[in-house]
């Protein structure tokens, strides 16, 4: 086990006191430490938002890019360096709103990365507008009469589109969250974890207590390999909200496994010589 302190960064954390992000940060550090990973073996990638500040607060390699654009650099990092452990940490706006197209196509790619979505059902950094996962009828400054569009269901979306590992966890249950993160990181393929968390400043409906009263952990009697059952579970939302691995397909070759040029050394370790390309000129003679 790696000393968990190795993942500490000596900086001031700019999250609100009581924010669910703190627990997610601690769970991630513990997961990496228990998986025996060293800081330089991990890259945490994010978009923009409060959750997306994660690379600032954990001492691993970090790439804090543009809003909605966490997935493209993440899958690129894994493609060119298959030895790297790549983890995306970003919010519901970043992952499901601005970055929706990348989510869809990254599921198709099945790149071996873990995607942790901090889902507080609200836009925090821009001070409280609806996010794709905000409940219907929820009133905000921009939606004064309440949200009139259907909420996005990331779990059902991911399962239906062929993601191999789809889970939900809760920032209020650190042990559950840590175990779910570990399983996602270890899964060979794209793994998404939707993490429910309160936004203490802007979401007065889905509070810590609101989630605490509703979430229940799936136990050993639940079979995550059954896709039809998983889709039914994915629709469960209201008085009871299931957390745990909702769908897990048997591992298949991931994106980088399917590119023959990547079979040997990582792409970045290839030595290149200009003269190697000279033979290609014959086509033009």
């Amino acid at each position, binding site marked *: 086990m790696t000393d968990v302190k190795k993942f500490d*960064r000596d*900086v001031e954390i*700019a999250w609100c006191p009581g924010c669910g992000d703190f627990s997610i940060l601690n769970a991630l550090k513990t997961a990496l430490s228990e998986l025996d990973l*060293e*800081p*330089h*073996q991990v*890259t945490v*990638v994010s978009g*923009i938002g409060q959750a997306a*500040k994660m*690379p*600032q607060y954990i*001492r*691993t*390699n*970090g*790439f*804090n*890019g*543009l809003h909605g*654009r966490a*997935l*493209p*650099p*993440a*899958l*690129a*990092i894994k*493609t*060119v*360096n298959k*030895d*790297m452990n790549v983890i995306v940490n970003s919010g519901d706006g970043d992952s499901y709103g601005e970055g929706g*197209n*990348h989510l*869809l*196509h990254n599921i198709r790619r099945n790149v071996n990365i873990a995607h942790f979505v901090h889902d507080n059902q609200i836009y925090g950094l821009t001070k409280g507008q609806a996010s794709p996962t905000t409940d219907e009828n929820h009133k905000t400054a921009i939606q004064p009469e309440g949200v009139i569009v259907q909420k996005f269901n990331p779990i059902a979306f991911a399962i239906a589109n062929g993601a191999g590992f789809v889970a939900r966890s809760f920032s209020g249950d650190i042990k559950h969250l840590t175990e779910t993160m570990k399983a996602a990181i270890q899964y060979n393929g794209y793994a998404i974890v939707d993490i429910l968390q309160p936004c203490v400043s802007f979401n007065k409906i889905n509070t810590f207590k609101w989630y605490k009263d509703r979430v229940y952990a799936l136990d050993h009697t639940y079979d995550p390999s059954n896709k039809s059952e998983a889709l039914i579970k994915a629709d469960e939302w209201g008085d009871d909200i299931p957390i745990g691995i909702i769908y897990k397909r048997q591992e298949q070759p991931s994106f980088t496994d399917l*590119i*023959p*040029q*990547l079979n040997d050394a990582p*792409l*970045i370790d*290839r030595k*290149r*010589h*200009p*003269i*190697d*390309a*000279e033979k*290609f*000129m014959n*086509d*033009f*003679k």
Partner: protein
Amino acid sequence: MNYNILIGGAAGQGINTLSSLLEKILHRKGYYLFSNMDYMSRVRGGHNFVQIRFGDEPITSHHSALDLVIALDQETLDLHQSRLKDTGVIFIDRSLNESKTSDNKQLKTYDFKSVAKELENNRVEGSVTVGAVLKHFGLDLDYVKESCDSIFKKVSIAQLNYTAIEKGMDLAESLLTLNPMPNNQDKILINGNQALALGALAGGLDYYVAYPMSPSTGIMTYLSSKQSEAGIVVEQAEDEIAAINMAIGGAYAGARSMTGTSGGGFSLMVESLGLSGIMEIPLVVVDVQRPGPATGLPTRTEQSDLSFVLTASHGEISRMILSVKSAEDAFYATVRALNIADKYQIPVIILSDQFLADTSQTIDAFNFDNITINRHISKKEDITEGTYKRYEMTENGISPRIIPGKIEGQVILSDSDEHDEYGNITESADVRIKQMNKRMQRLEMLKSVVEEPEHFGSEQPNLLLMGWGSMYGPLQEAVKMLQDDGYKVASLVFGDLYPLPTKLLEKYHDKANTLVNVEQNFTGQLGKLIRQETGIHCQKSILKYDGRQLSGEEIYNRVIKEVL
């Protein structure tokens, strides 16, 4: 000696096969070629044509007067007949010419289709035509077999096409005799997109990510076809935003990365161009221009993205912009762009255009001996004080760059927010100033790297024509024609555009009375850039924005009419 052939017809009629076979044979026989494509944005039908100009000396531009037209449909006949020289002829299949224009002596009616039918494969009609063309120019069967083998991968198909060419030769008569040419093993026939892609391979490219967009797609197509042999990864992204972010992610992780698109795709990439700037991640972006705005003329040519790429991205970043002047230049310039991006940790934008992308030209084989791949990656020993700082303040403004995961215990934090030396977010005014100065300092350093424009023509010109990128070949030809008429004229053609090289500009500006910018756009973007950077005004502009490239002859005519 040079001749100009036009092959025209509807998309799907096999123009490309016909022209590439003919080009290959002429090339192997040692002639210099210059071949450009004019095609519509549709899969079948419409009017498309290829112009093949060939001769015994290097050719740098297309030309409008035609020696031979191969009309695969009536429209080609109607549209291009008037461009025929007095000595020119038109080849047409009998089925298209049921006596209605038979009194035209320039019209040669042949049985291309029925010969193909006899060979039991209608698709070899083009090769029958190639045979007739060879006979027309008095050429023999030398190099025809090898050319068929290289164009048609399947042996039986190559053989069938060879037979079709032989049969086609029997149809026509020899009206011309060409000088035989010496062996040209040291020459290649290549288009702008292919040359750029080959330059990327020579320059050590690891990772190319793009979304298909005409006319840049040829770069990705070529790189994909070589990816397993070259050991690189080429990926088709879900959109241009993903493409550039993937290229940036790949570069962050240590791969030499590049993306390519046209103006519309570049528009989508702009926010991320700034990301590469503030993160100091090396990146090469190719913009193969086509007429805009929005979808514009998707398969036509223009040089109208210069003003846009000069300031693309909100906020300010160091960047370098270069344009490629010819297929030959595209190769070497791409290698250079990759090295400069790595050395200065900046985005480098390469401007090409549809004309250059789709124009094949006979050029000297590329010289791989002097090419170097300079990655400028730091090692463990370069890390001072034990902890790596991605954005360390250094004298020259360039921080050591290491690769994530490669040095035990060291991590790399890159952030799109303003950040301190470690990559940590900051709002400190002092740190902001220091980091801005550090990033922008590179513009000054780049001034010593930029290459001066290419000068062609008189050393003491009265008239100075200025262009950039693909205007290179046509301007060369125009200057020659004007010089032949006794005018004291020169041209300066810019490859590097930003930072703008100014030495030759100032030198010839002092000598010339009249400066003219010659560009494929409406607003005279090079003229504006020159004025902005140096205060030098161009008195006249020769501009074209109908989607078709200016030829040397056209520039010559417009100079005579509009300038002199």
